[in-house]
C-alpha cells in the first residue's frame, strides 16, 4: 500500500518491514548460535553428561580424605561390529590424583573400520569434574580387519567434586563413523 495516504506521519512501511525481516534473519542465525552456546553451556554446567572432548591440563592435587568409585560402562551403538569392553569394571580413586584405565576393542569384521567413542558421565553434577587428560575418544580410532587394540584413558577427578557424589559412571559409546557420514536415510 502506498505510504502516503493512510500512514501515520513519519512511519515508513518499507523501513519497518526491512527491520522485521532483519530480525527474522537474526533469529535464524540465533538458532545456529544456540549450537556453540549450548556447547559452552554444557561444558560449564555438565548439562547432558558432557565431559571435556579435548585434552585438559590439570595439576595433581590429591585430597586423600575422599575416595570415589569410578565405574565404566561400554556401549556399542546400533549393533556396530565391535566388541568393546573396559578392562576393569570399576576403580576406587582419590580426587586430584592421576589414574589410568584401559579399554579394549576388537573389530569383528574383515574390513577396515573407523570408530568414534563418545564419552558421557553420570551423575550430571560430576561431569564437569571428571577431567580426561588423555583419551582415545579425542580422535577417531582406526581398526584394521579383525584388529584388537587396547586404548588408554588418563584422568583426574577434580577435588572440588560436590560432596554428595560418591560414585561416578563414565560411559563410552562406540559409533561406526562410516555409518554416520554415509547415513542417507535408507
Amino acid at each position: 500500500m502506498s505510504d502516503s495516504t493512510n500512514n501515520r506521519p513519519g512511519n515508513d512501511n518499507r523501513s519497518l518491514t526491512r527491520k522485521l525481516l532483519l530480525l527474522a534473519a537474526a533469529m535464524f542465525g540465533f538458532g545456529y548460535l544456540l549450537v556453540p552456546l549450548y556447547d559452552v553451556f554444557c561444558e560449564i554446567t555438565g548439562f547432558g553428561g558432557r565431559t571435556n572432548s579435548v585434552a585438559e591440563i590439570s595439576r595433581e592435587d590429591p585430597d586423600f580424605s575422599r575416595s570415589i568409585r569410578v565405574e565404566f560402562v561400554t556401549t556399542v551403538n546400533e549393533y556396530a561390529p565391535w566388541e568393546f569392553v573396559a578392562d576393569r569394571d570399576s576403580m576406587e580413586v582419590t580426587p586430584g590424583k592421576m589414574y589410568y584405565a584401559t579399554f579394549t576393542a576388537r573389530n569383528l569384521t574383515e574390513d577396515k573400520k573407523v570408530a568414534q567413542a563418545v564419552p558421557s558421565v553420570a551423575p550430571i553434577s560430576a561431569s564437569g569434574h571428571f577431567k580426561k587428560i588423555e583419551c582415545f575418544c579425542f580422535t577417531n580410532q582406526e581398526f584394521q580387519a579383525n584388529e584388537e587394540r587396547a586404548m588408554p584413558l588418563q584422568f583426574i577427578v577434580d577435588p572440588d567434586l560436590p560432596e554428595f557424589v560418591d560414585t561416578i559412571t563414565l560411559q563410552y559409546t562406540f559409533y561406526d563413523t562410516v555409518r554416520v557420514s554415509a547415513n542417507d536415510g535408507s
Partner: protein
Amino acid sequence: MIRKSLLSLLGTLWAGAASADWALNMPRGVTELSAETYDLHMMVFWWCVWIGVVVFGVMIISLVKHRKSRGVEPATFSHSTTAEVVWTIIPVVILLVMAVPAAETMIRLEDSRNPDISVVVTGYQWKWHYRYQDEDIAFYSSLDRPSVEARPKNSGIDPFDVENFLLEVDRPLVVPKGAKVRLLITSNDVVHSWWVPDLAIKKDAVPGIINETWFRAEQTGTFRGQCTELCGKDHGYMPIVVEVVEPDAYIAWVETHQQTGERVATSQ
C-alpha cells in the same frame, strides 16, 4: 448452561469411580519418593480444585444473577487497582507454597549416593537390555510371547484373554526389596524412556549419553511400566517389568542365573 457441562464432567467422574478396578489416579507407588510424588500431585490438585471452586463459583453466580433477562442494568466499572494487585499477589503466595515441597522432593530424587546395586539399562528398538554391574548377569527383556501373538492386526486373539496384555516381558528386571537400586540408562539407537509408575521413575534413554536415576522399593511385587518416548513403530510394544523380591530370593536368583550362564549375548 455451564452447569450442564459441569454435570457432564461429573458424570464421567462418577462413572469412573463407580466401577471399582478402574484406576483413576496416580498410584501411590512402593518407594518413599513415589509416595512423596503422589502427595505433591494431590496437593497441587487440591489447590487447583479450590481455586477452581472460587473462580468458577464467582463466574457461575455472575452467570445466574447478572443476566439481561433478569433486567439488570450493567455496571460501568472497568478496573480496580486493588483487585488487580490482590489477584496477582495471592497466586504468587500459593505458588510459593507449592514450590517449596516440590523443590525438596526434587533434591531427594537427585541424591543417588551409596547405591546397593547398579544396573545398566539400554533401550533398543524395541526391547530393553539390563546388565547388572557387579554380577555377571545381562539379558534382553522383550514383550512376552502371548502378547506378541495377540498383537498383530486381526490376530484373532482377544486381548482380554491375554494376561497382562502388552505389559508382560519374557525376563523381568529382578531387584531386592529395600535395596537402593541405581539405574544407568542409555540407548542403542533412538531416544527411549524408562518408566515404572509405581517406582515414580521416568528417565530418557538417549544414545551416547548415560543418565542416572535410582529407587528403593519398600514392598515386594511385580511392577509394570512402558517406554514413554516415541521410538518408532513398536514403541507401544516394549514394556518394562520389575520384580521386587525378598533379599534371599534375590541372592538365589543371582546364583541360578550366573550358574545357568544365562548371560545372554550382549553387544559388548
